[in-house]
């Protein structure tokens, strides 16, 4: 029984890989992999079908980049503040509250992006579209703040106290200690937190499906509707696409692309953690 349950996790991985590969394989029998990777249009649901994944990837990376540029400075400042500056009582109250941000269902964040953030952005940038990458990206950034702040703070706090005190001892301020001693010492943990947040943002679905639009286009303009890989899968799932059709297979090819991205990122994170762990035993 116990062995069987251990096997389930392995089976799940094989299941995922097998499902993605087999459906993608039959997709690539009909569409050349060169077209998939190089064409700059993605229109499988139109009469004139084009199968270039680039617009979906660019949409995904655009929202992710916006999210990280919100979450990185905020998350890291919070982590450093909580571990180096804040009194213990404050930290004990604030940390669980911030983690609440991560427990909010993503569909709720989608509501925030579409109903609250986009109308607000419209007052500053009047020509922004009702669906856009900017608002979805910002809200996604808020969502991943606790990933970065919590894990980075743990990394900072696992650096032995003696190192911090040695730095104080030679007259460094808290700021100097934080940036020249603690952050370098905890860098592997901080890097892991950033990579995992990156991977999380790439795979995030509901926020972008609700607020970023459904128009795949190859652009860096954050004010117009775009479409991410995940949002495309949702779009097809909502429609009535018959099994076995080429449209049905596109979601597996798209899912495979997404899986490859997150798989690489997660393994880099795992490798960094393994390689640089136990530096201070």
């Amino acid at each position, binding site marked *: 029984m116990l062995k069987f349950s251990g096997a389930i996790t392995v089976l799940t991985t094989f299941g995922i890989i097998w499902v993605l590969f087999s459906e993608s394989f039959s997709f690539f029998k009909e569409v050349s992999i060169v077209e998939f990777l190089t064409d700059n249009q993605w229109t499988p649901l139109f009469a004139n079908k084009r199968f270039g994944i680039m617009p979906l990837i660019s949409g995904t990376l655009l929202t992710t980049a916006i999210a990280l540029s919100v979450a990185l400075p905020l998350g890291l400042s919070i982590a450093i503040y909580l571990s180096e500056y804040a009194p213990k009582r404050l930290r004990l109250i604030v940390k669980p509250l911030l983690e609440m*941000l991560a427990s909010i*269902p993503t569909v709720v964040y989608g509501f925030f992006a579409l109903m609250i953030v986009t109308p607000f952005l419209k007052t500053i940038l009047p020509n922004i579209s009702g669906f856009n990458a900017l608002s979805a990206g910002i809200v996604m950034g808020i969502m991943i703040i606790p990933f970065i702040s919590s894990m980075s703070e743990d990394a900072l706090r696992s650096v032995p106290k003696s190192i911090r005190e040695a730095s104080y001892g030679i007259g460094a*301020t808290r700021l100097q200690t934080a940036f020249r001693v603690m952050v370098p010492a905890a860098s592997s943990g901080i890097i892991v937190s950033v990579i995992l947040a990156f991977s999380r943002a790439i795979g995030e679905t509901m926020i972008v499906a609700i607020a970023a639009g459904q128009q795949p286009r190859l652009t860096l303009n954050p004010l117009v509707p775009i479409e991410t890989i995940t949002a495309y899968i949702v779009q097809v799932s909502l429609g009535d696409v018959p099994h076995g059709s080429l449209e049905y297979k596109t979601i597996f090819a798209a899912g495979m692309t997404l899986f490859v991205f997150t798989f690489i990122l*997660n393994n880099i994170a795992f490798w960094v953690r393994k390689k640089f762990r136990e530096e201070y035993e």
Partner: protein
Amino acid sequence: MNRRYINRIKDKAFGFVGLIATLFGLLILTFLIGQVFYEGFHRIDLDFLKSLPSRKPEKAGIYTALAGTVWILFLTTIFSLPLGISTGIYLEEYTKKNRLTDLLEINVSNLAGVPSIIYGLLGLEVFGRMLNLGNSLLAGALTLSLLVLPIIIVTTREAIRAVPNSLRMASYGLGASKWQTIWEQILPASMGGILTGVILAISRAVGETAPLLVVGALAYVPFAPSSPLDEFTVLPIQIFNWISRPQHGFSVNAAAAILLLLTITFIMNGVAVYLRNRWQKKHNW
């Protein structure tokens, strides 16, 4: 002298920046929830809870979605709890450290990082089509179980690892078998931590939308499901559906449903945090 002064100002300045950043996160949280409250609270009444979905926003209710969420909660717990805990026990107590367990460990941590929508594709193909469960509750719950399994496994292992070895040795010393030791000593001692993980995992399942959309949960289900093989909808999908409609009445409904969903997730998370704290206090090894 001068430089020391500047350094001290910089130090203070960053303290201020950090405080602002921290408060900013919390303020946004309060502001967003406040907005939803303002928009949706007046819509919540008994009729809203008891009504079936409708094309008219003021008549629509969340009865079917709420029923679906309760079903999903129940079924996902049944599937994932025994599997997750026994995998955790197996990995922590029965395996020696070797390449195989290393691989298992990498595998679990990789699974935890797979985007939830990919689990949806897995569920669609394996449970929906191969096992012929279609877009039933069962297909949805099985998919979500696989999704939350890594969370339960990881927290179970951590909780078991926190049990001191002396307890284990004492139990063996008294002549207990391995299984008796696990069942009578280690599991009770780590129950707090395990339960925390289970609750967090289930609360994650309740809030998931994307994998269920892919498996084929419907936005419009006229009746509450009465068996695990019925089609279903859940709160997050109902919210998604209401958000994507243009009429204002539906976004009010969405806000009201969000309040209910947030209440459920916050209560579950609160219970989990409470359990973790109490357990940590009680067992200060």
